[in-house]
């Protein structure tokens, strides 16, 4: 395992700037999650590190060495593709053994057999080992493709939405497994996802990408509590952060927009303090209640505790707590 650093990395496809001037260090043993919408440059970043794409400018260092001229094989990285890319002419066992049999690793057959069995058990597919790769369900294919990376001990694991097509239970299981394996082995991992629960639970660091640029890089707590912009603030938190004009609330403000996390809105009865809000809808989720409010034409989502049952059209009072302030362009000011 090794430290991987990107220095001013850029890549364009024709007129599209896929990745622009990204500088980032993935520390040895870190679990870094890249967040961002489709087209933000997450997958391209992985492909640049793996060597499947050539850099336009900048450099990639793995364990201190500039790998710009290295082939993907020489870089010694493992990658899980979003499209599983299992070799269709091989069985599951052969697929898992394929990287171990490469001319670079040349693993002895008895070691291969042991590792393949181990990984198959972690991924709950030992009974499928002798199936053709094409004779699997989507979830099984995805697990085999994760397994094909995990059998190796590379400098870094690159994973492109590896859990996206699994059902909820398996996804939760594998999330825990992946995190455990990574922590046990001290692996370095760069992980692309849309799923903020995956990001928050597994990451040691999160990188937020916007239009090919790295807009913020830090610990999940840091990104959640101190977002640099509305864009970053909206990437984490469910329900999403409420972005409202600051003057909706009385008092002096440090910016033109105010960002309120749903859990940071204090509710009180109509007789209490705060500004008036009308309850539009309340959703019971068991452990919490989601309240959809209307404040002078602005929709606000907040959480209330399950004991406090407001009904539609009821008027309540709300008070913002630890607000985030942004300027008109969406940049954080306080």
């Amino acid at each position, binding site marked *: 395992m090794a430290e991987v650093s990107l220095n001013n990395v850029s890549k364009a496809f024709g007129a599209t700037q896929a990745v622009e001037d990204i500088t980032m260090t993935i520390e040895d043993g870190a679990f870094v999650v890249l967040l961002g919408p489709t087209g933000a440059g997450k997958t391209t970043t992985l492909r640049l590190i*793996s060597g*499947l794409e050539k850099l336009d400018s900048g450099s990639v260092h793995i364990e201190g060495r500039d790998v710009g001229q290295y*082939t993907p094989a020489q870089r010694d990285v493992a*990658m899980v*593709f*979003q499209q599983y890319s299992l070799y269709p002419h091989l069985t599951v066992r052969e697929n898992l053994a394929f990287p171990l049999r*490469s*001319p670079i690793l040349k693993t002895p057959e008895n070691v291969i057999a042991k590792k393949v069995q181990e990984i198959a058990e972690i991924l709950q597919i030992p009974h499928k080992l002798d199936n053709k790769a094409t004779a699997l369900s989507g979830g099984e*294919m995805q697990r085999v493709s994760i397994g094909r990376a995990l059998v190796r001990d590379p400098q870094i694991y690159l994973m492109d939405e590896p859990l996206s097509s699994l059902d909820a239970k398996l996804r939760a299981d594998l999330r825990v497994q992946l995190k455990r394996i990574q922590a046990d082995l001290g692996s370095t991992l760069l992980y692309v996802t849309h799923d903020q629960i995956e990001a928050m639970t597994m990451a040691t660091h999160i990188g937020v990408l916007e239009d090919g640029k790295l807009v913020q890089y830090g610990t999940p707590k840091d990104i959640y509590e101190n977002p640099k912009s509305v864009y970053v603030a909206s990437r984490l938190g469910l329900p999403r952060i409420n972005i409202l004009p600051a003057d909706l609330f009385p008092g002096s403000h440090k910016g033109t927009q105010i960002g309120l996390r749903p859990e940071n809105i204090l509710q009180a009865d109509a007789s209490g303090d705060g500004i008036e809000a009308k309850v539009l809808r309340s959703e019971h989720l068991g452990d919490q209640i989601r309240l959809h409010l209307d404040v002078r034409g602005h929709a606000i989502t907040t959480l209330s505790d399950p004991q406090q049952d407001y009904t539609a059209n009821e008027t309540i009072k709300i008070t913002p707590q630890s607000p985030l302030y942004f300027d008109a362009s969406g940049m954080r000011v306080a």
Partner: protein
Amino acid sequence: MSSFSVTEPSNRTKWFAGTLVILYALITMIPLVWIALTGFKSPADAISYPPKYIIGGESEAGFEPTLEGYVNLFTTRTRQTQEFLHANPPENWADEIVRQYDMVIVGPSKFGQRFLNSVIIGFGSTFLSVFLGTLAAYAFSRFKIPLADDLLFFILSTRMMPPIAVAIPIFLMYRQLGLSDTHLGMILLYTGVNISLAVWLLKSFIDGIPTEYEEAALIDGYTRFQAFYKVVLPQAATGIASTAIFCLIFAWNEYAFAVLLTTANAQTAPPFIPTIIGVGGLDWPAIAAGVTIFLLPVMIFTILLRKHLLRGITFGAVRK
């Protein structure tokens, strides 16, 4: 099964389709069966009217099978005097067959050698066409090649003219280069004709194989070439098999260039078989025997590759 199904054809449709296919098969098979039967007839039975088409038996249409045609195909014979025949009893079963016409076998005919030439040239050029075609198709499919479209069109354009139209320049060129009547010359010629077909057919097959597999193999520690033969080739097997069959059929059947460019050394079977007609009358059984043997390699080759043709396309482990 329900009484009405969108995907399953009705029984009546199946019967109709089955009957059609069997009829078509019969019509196309009859000439082949007729040729194969004629190979085992005597010259008299071969041209008898009404025709004889039942092996053995006493009926009007029955004939006694004989290997005369095959013996005549593979040997050269001379007529001998009765004294000579009495003094020298037949040495083997083949000799015995020709004795009934007062002949003796004096040596092998050229058919064996011509047939071998066909095998060397046919399979040699097929191998070369498919080998070069696969590499070229892979390059066109995967790499950014300057003027790729123009090059592909150029390769296709070599097919737009009937090859025989350039027979005379090729004849002169081959004489100059010393390629006339050589195996190498014929292999190169047939490869030149087939390569355009091979490149185009294989390119479309390789285009259909997602590049993700090779990328996965590159990451898994393999070089580009290793990824090509470990991951791309197995998946292109269907395309390679069908391309090989097309190439072999052309090279195997080619007649015009073989007549023009080969004589003593590298002559293939197609120009040789008609020469049997000129030797001692119309020996139909010998011609039929030659044609039957000539048909076999392509048939066997196709049957051997059938597994790959029918295996279907196994793409599907890449999510789209």
